[in-house]
């Protein structure tokens, strides 16, 4: 399967997930967005050697994946982009930082190993957390939340249109590359002679499409920046979600919860 259709498919898959009717999907997008941001800030703020603290933060994605009935498989698939980069940055840490910090069950962990592990755990947790947001929130709800945060209408409407037309243009690009490949068998990519005209044609068609789109928007009363998607009101349950998770996450960040648990046994 080509890279292009693959991208279109994974986007459609996320969209489908986000439109399911589960309790997590019904939570107000603003609550989910704020909790996600808070989580990311708190998770990332652990210092490199504080592995147990970071592990404690796993509670949030783990619980919500379970309760929300999301599969880890889809989320783990997204890690293929992030993990290699993160590993590349962290892989040399054990060589540079050899100071032994801790001996667990006879194995001595050096500072470098701890920082490398914690970097990877951070990488996984942050990706899971953003996945939780987008896999339970459709695009127009994300836009609604952004509007409520006073992101300018230009940006929000533009973001919505990008999301709407990505699939259309991906299909167009896919057809073009297929048509090219059929007439240029055995080539791996697009040869240099066709670089300009290929992308250029796609660009011109996109500009024409944008022109037609503007006409169609004008015919339905478009006047520029005004947000024109539904914005739900925050209900009490949305606030409860926001408050409870904020408290839990901050507690997880402030108290070494895992260590307290461990001390009961060690």
């Amino acid at each position: 399967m080509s890279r292009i259709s693959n991208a279109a498919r994974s986007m459609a898959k996320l969209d489908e997930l986000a439109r399911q009717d589960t309790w997590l999907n019904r939570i107000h997008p603003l609550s989910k967005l704020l909790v996600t941001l808070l989580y990311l800030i708190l998770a990332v703020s652990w210092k490199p050697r504080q592995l147990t603290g970071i592990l404690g933060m796993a509670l949030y994605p783990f619980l919500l994946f379970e309760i929300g009935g999301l599969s880890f498989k889809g989320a783990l698939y997204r890690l293929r982009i992030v993990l290699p980069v993160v590993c590349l940055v962290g892989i040399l840490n054990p060589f540079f930082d050899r100071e032994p910090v801790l001996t667990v069950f006879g194995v001595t962990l050096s500072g470098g190993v701890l920082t490398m592990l914690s970097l990877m755990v951070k990488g996984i947790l942050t990706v899971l957390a953003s996945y939780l947001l987008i896999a339970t929130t459709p695009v127009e709800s994300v836009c609604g939340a952004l509007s409520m945060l006073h992101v300018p209408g230009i940006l929000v409407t533009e973001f919505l249109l990008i999301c709407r037309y990505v699939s259309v243009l991906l299909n167009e690009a896919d057809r073009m590359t297929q048509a090219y490949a059929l007439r240029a068998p055995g080539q791996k990519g697009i040869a240099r002679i066709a670089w300009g005209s290929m992308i250029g044609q796609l660009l011109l068609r996109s500009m024409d499409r944008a022109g037609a789109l503007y006409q169609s928007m004008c015919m339905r009363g478009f006047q520029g920046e005004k947000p024109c998607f539904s914005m739900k009101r925050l209900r009490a349950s949305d606030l409860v979600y926001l408050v409870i998770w904020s408290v839990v996450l901050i507690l997880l960040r402030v108290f070494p919860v895992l260590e307290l648990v461990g001390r009961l046994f060690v």
Partner: protein
Amino acid sequence: MSHIHIDITDLSFSYEEGSRLLDGLTVSFHEHDAVGIIGANGAGKSTFLKLIVGLETAQAGSIRIEEIPVEKKTLPKIREKIGYVFQDSETQLFMTTVREDVAFAPRNYSLPEDEVARRVDRALDLVHITHLADKPVHKLSGGEKKLASIATILSMTPDILLMDEPSIALDPRNRKNLISILNEFDHLKLIASHDLDFIWDTCNRVVLMDQGKIVADGPAEEILRDEALLTAHGLELPLSLTRRV
């Protein structure tokens, strides 16, 4: 309510000097007209429709809609009265779900949210796609997209409906569905198409255009049966009529 009508006098339009795309059109349309604007490719049908709603500006002549002249400052008012269904549903539907898209116009006209919801439900009901309301647009079939496009226009409760090649890329069933929906809309409608069978099924009046001029204007019964006239201007008898004859 004022009587719905469009009066066009001596309308001329060209993209560049020298080549006239539309040349001195004079015509009127009235409340219960269902007008088929027919003509071969390049006859100027789409441009004609776009001029009526001010998406293009004419070099000469005037267009009046219910006595309001079409000019820059009256456009918002005129566009509230007229619904325009574009040929390409993909550009007509720019929101992510059908419901959001149908709600776009009423929201832009600052209606309260409950009125918006009422209008959306009614528009979806009129084209029988209530079941598609929460479906993402990119998942609709070609026929569903066309019906959804019409719903996005009906939610504005327009007095006048303009459609550009509505029957393109529809399978027989969707086509039949669309015909019956159009026949239920009893306000003034203008349908530009070279699909004469479709026009035969939906229109009671036909305007035949060729090279920017109106060459015939009359009851659909007459013009669509006039084989000599149609072939002279690059068209052919509707298939359903050839079979019957």
